[in-house]
Structure formats: C-alpha cells, structure tokens
C-alpha cells in the first residue's frame, strides 16, 4: 500500500475512532465517556467520506452525534450524581479481563488474516452517483423496500417497549 493521502487519512481516522471507542469503555465519568463517543462518531463519519459515502457521513453526524448523543447526555445529566452506581468489578470479573482481551485479539487476528488472504485491495471503479442521495434513495425504495417498511415496525416496537417500561402507572386496586 503506497502512502497516498487517502491512506494517511484513513490511518489517522481509524486510529482516532478506535482510541475514542476505547475511551467510551475506559473513562469513568459518564459525560466524558459520552464526549468520547461523539469523537468516535466523528471519526467514523470521516471514514465514510473516505469511502465516498458522503450521505452516510452526514447522516452519521446528524443522527448519531446530533440527535442520539444529545439524548444520551440528557439522560446522563438526569441520573447524574450517583457515584455508587459505578461499582468496582469483582475479582472474578477482573480475572476474566485477560481472557476477554485474548478473545478480542483472536478475532482481530483472524480478521486481519482473513482480509489479507481474501486480497480485498482491488477497489472497483465506483459509479459516478455512488453514495449520492438519489442512489441511496433508489436502493431504499427499490431493492430494500421491505426492509425499509419493516424497520418502521421495529421502531414502533422499540418506542412502545420503552414507554411501557418507563411509565409507572398507579397499581390498580
């Protein structure tokens, strides 16, 4: 792989996205963890731009970094100031950590090996309108119409489930 500007940018943003994602897991302060998550989303959206998926990049920022993260931060602010909520892991869990890291390393190794052996470094020429709003729209409403429709059912179930669980009703007498 030559050092094209794309490769350099890819390296920068993929490293920053991994570091930010690690930050979400490691940082103890929930607000800072949320900020780290925003950094992660931003890096990923830069990666999307590098893959010529501009629409996806914009949506990533708008939906995840914008809407969803604002909700996250709101929820964190509402349930803040409860230090006891974050507990020290038990000994058994601490012992499990190397095991989990080993599992992650194994998957990462298999993945790298797989990509190397599959030889995926042959980018095809993309159609000129790749990643544009209209081509993504055509995919949605032509090839993936059913998926699009059934997602609405899925979201409805999510909303109803959240409301049913969080709404405390008076116990019936």
């Amino acid at each position, binding site marked *: 792989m030559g050092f094209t500007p794309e490769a350099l940018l890819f390296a920068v943003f993929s490293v920053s996205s991994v570091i930010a994602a690690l930050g979400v897991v490691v940082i103890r302060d929930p607000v800072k963890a949320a900020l780290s998550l925003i950094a992660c989303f931003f890096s990923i959206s830069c990666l999307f731009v590098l893959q010529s998926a501009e629409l996806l990049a914009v949506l990533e920022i708008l939906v995840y970094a914008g809407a969803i993260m604002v909700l996250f931060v709101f929820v964190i602010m509402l349930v803040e100031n409860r230090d006891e909520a974050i507990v020290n892991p038990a000994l058994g869990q601490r012992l499990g950590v190397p095991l989990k890291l080993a599992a992650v390393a194994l998957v990462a190794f298999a993945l790298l090996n*797989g990509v190397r052996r599959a030889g995926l470094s042959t980018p095809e020429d993309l159609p000129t309108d790749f990643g544009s709003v209209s081509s993504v729209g055509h995919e949605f409403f032509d090839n993936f119409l*059913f998926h699009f429709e059934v997602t609405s059912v899925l979201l409805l179930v999510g909303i109803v489930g959240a409301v*049913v669980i969080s709404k405390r009703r008076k116990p019936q007498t």
Partner: protein
Amino acid sequence: MSISLPALEPLLPGLLLVGVAILLLMYEVFAGQADRTYAAHLAVVGLGLSMFLSLKAVGTPRALLFGTDLANAPLIVDDFARVASALVAAAGLVAALLSPSYAKNAGHDHGEYYGLILFAVVGMMIMSMAGDLMTFFLGLETMSIAVYALTGLRAHDPRSTEAALKYFLMGAFATGFLLFGIALVYGATASVSLATLATFKAGSPLLTLGIALILIGFAFKVAAVPFHMWAPDVYEGAPTPVTGFMAVGVKAAAFIALLRLVHSGLGVSAQTDSTWIPILSALAVLTILVGNVLALVQQNVKRMLAYSSVSHAGYLLIGVVAAARGEASAGSAIIFYLTSYTFMTLGAFGVLTFLERKEGGPESERYGAFAGIGFRHPALGMAMSLFMVALAGMPPTGGFFGKLYLFTAAIRAEETWLALVGIAGSLISVYYYLRVIVAFYMREVPEPGPTPTATRSAQLTLGVALAAFFVLQLGLFPAPLLALTKSAMLSLGL
C-alpha cells in the same frame, strides 16, 4: 418495482397480527382503568386466525415477495415458513391465554402487553420467511426488543428489572456479534441473500469468520453453553407467562431460521469445510451436559426450567448437526421437537402461573412451596405431571416422539455418539423433572404451611388444557404433524 395488494396475500397472517397489535395500542389511549381481558381475547382471536391462515395455505406453491427470484427476494413464503408461522402463532396464543390473571396480580395489565406479544410473533414470522440476512436481522430485532420489554413489566419486583436489563445488554451484545458476522459475510460475497451465499464455496476466511460470528449470535439467542449465563436470571425475573413465551418462541424462531441458514449457505459450507461439524457438535454436547447438570442443583423451579430449556437447546443442536451433515429427516425432527416442546413448556409455565402468589418472591418458587399441591388441586397436579413426563421425553407424550425423531436423525447422519450424549442427558433430566412431581405429591405439607393460592381464570384453564391436549395428541397421534413438517422440509428442496 410496484407491489399490488393481492401480491401481499401470502403475508396476510403477519399483516393481520400487526393490525391487531396497532388496534390494541390505539385503543389503550381511550381505555380507562378497565379490565384488559378484552385485549387478551382480541390477541387470542388474531393469533388463532393467523395460525389458521398459515396452515390453510400449506401445500400451495412458494411465494416470493418484493423480489423476482430466490437471490433477491427478502421474503420467501413457502411451506416451511407457513408451518413455522403457525407454530410461533400457537406459542403466542397459549402465552396470551396464560396472561390475564397473572397480569392483574402483577400489576401490568396493559393493552400494550398483548400488543408486544403480537409484535414478537410477527418478528418470529419474519425470521422464518427471511430470504436474506438483513430481513432475518430485522425480524430478530423486532422479536427481541418486544421480549426485552415484556421481561421488565413487573415494575414492582427488582428481579424483573434486573432480568430485563441483563437480557437487553446480553441481547445487544449478541446482536453486535450477529451484525458483525453479517457484515463480514457481505464483505466476502457482496450479497446478503441466503441463495447467493449457497453458491459460494467454503474456504474464504472472511466468510468462515462471518458465519462463525452469526453462529455466536444464534447461540446467545437460544442460550447454548457457553452463551447461556443470562438465561436463569432472565427466566426467573420475567413474568411467568412471558418466561414460557420466551423459552419456546425465541428458541423456535431462532432454530427455524438456523435451519433455513443450514440448508442454504452454512450447509454448503459445512459439506466442504470440515470445521463446522466439530464446532456445532461441541456446542451441542456442552449445552446438553452443562444444562442438565446445573438443572439438577437448582432449588427454584423457574430456574430449573431455565436450565432445562438450555439443555433442550442442546438436543436441538444435535438435530442441526445432523441437518448440516445433509440428513433430510433432521429438519422435520427439529420442527416436531419444537412443536412438542412449545406445548409442554408453556403448559408447565401455565401451571406455575396458576400457583403464583400475589406477593410473589423467590420463596414461592422453590420446590418446597409446591408441597401437597397434587392433592389440593388434582387437575393441576395431573397436568404438571404430564408436562414433566413430556419434558423428560417419556411416552405417551409428544416429548417422546420429539426425542425419538431427533436422535434417529442423528444416528442416520452417522453421529451415533451425539445421540448417545442426548440420551444420557435425558436420563439425567428425569431426576429433576420427577422431583417436581415428588414435590407435588409426596412431600409433607408444612403445618401452618405457605400454600399457593391458585389464581382461577377461565383463560388460564383453557391455556393449560390446550397445552395438555396437544402434548398428549402429539404423543398418541404424531402422524399429522409429521406430515406437516415433511411438507415444510420438502419446500426447502429436501
């Protein structure tokens, strides 16, 4: 591409359920403090109708929706999908019958409860019809999210909240594996369609890794060892009818989707790539042994049933191994097993629902709490004995034929040792299933003694009676269901 309304007819059983569910949600806005038994009735009618429509269409040609051929249709409505849809609708129906009196006691008598059950059933139906991995994923999530919410409904019991949170987190984790696997499969084959997947030769490491991650996601959903940790806590904390629904519905849908996967992509891969069979076999053996041994030491009947459900996933995995070996009868054995398992498990949870006490608590679920019930409530005692005997796999119940067909298929696929492990597991299981019967009939009732106050309700009685009827029916006359499962497997091209 345009879709005309008549072309949607094969989807009617699912659309009907979505309609009823939305009706229930809308009506909830106007319903005051009234009793929600009507919601249960409406759900039962919808599920019954949906089941009838699915079964009625069995034998008609395969319908491809939103696409023109197997490679691009997201939905494949064939006999396999129809039989599976009828099965999950039946599971939802019995669960809805078990619910009204329990929901009133536990304080979650909402219309949304039944709406969520209906949505979960719709998700399961979509899983059984999925022609590509994306459809499968959307169906799985629709089902899972509905069940997460149902698990946490007992708002006044911290065990329920804990269960819902645990289930949600573990489920989200499993979903991560599954999605990552699907992404890798897409990376390797440039398609998510199962039919296209089948044309790819094994050997691409990306494909292998992708399928492995998808299998891990499955293993989480069916609580196969070592991905079973969540099961006991979730089973214990969820409302009892939901536990029953979760044990049978989620398992049935996952195995049915796995079966379709095995007969397309994974099956081809398994016959050319020798790594799958040992992995699946190891998963099956571990699941059977760990599930049965841990069930032995449980003191809480709901937790015992959770571990027993883990072990049943193990028996079913034997069937999956046989199917991956190309054994044609394995698929119909799995569907038969799932059907009989559905009725006996829902029946057992139905009896537990009957005996649930208003104050609840883990004490009321121990073996000792059921001392002498067999004499106090003779019909309940009989029913529970029947379900336990069926779960142990003894004749004259559906459980016996389920295990017989499954192990026969394994022997035919030259996996005799797996069948032997399965039989050994069943022998262990006899001990803890009979322990329930012993508690019901042979324990001294403690003097002042906490005795469960059976909650009487016509719906509950009907639900348990239906389950008992089908358990016996499948044990005495297995032929009609066997014919159905055979036509289901024929439609997959076997």
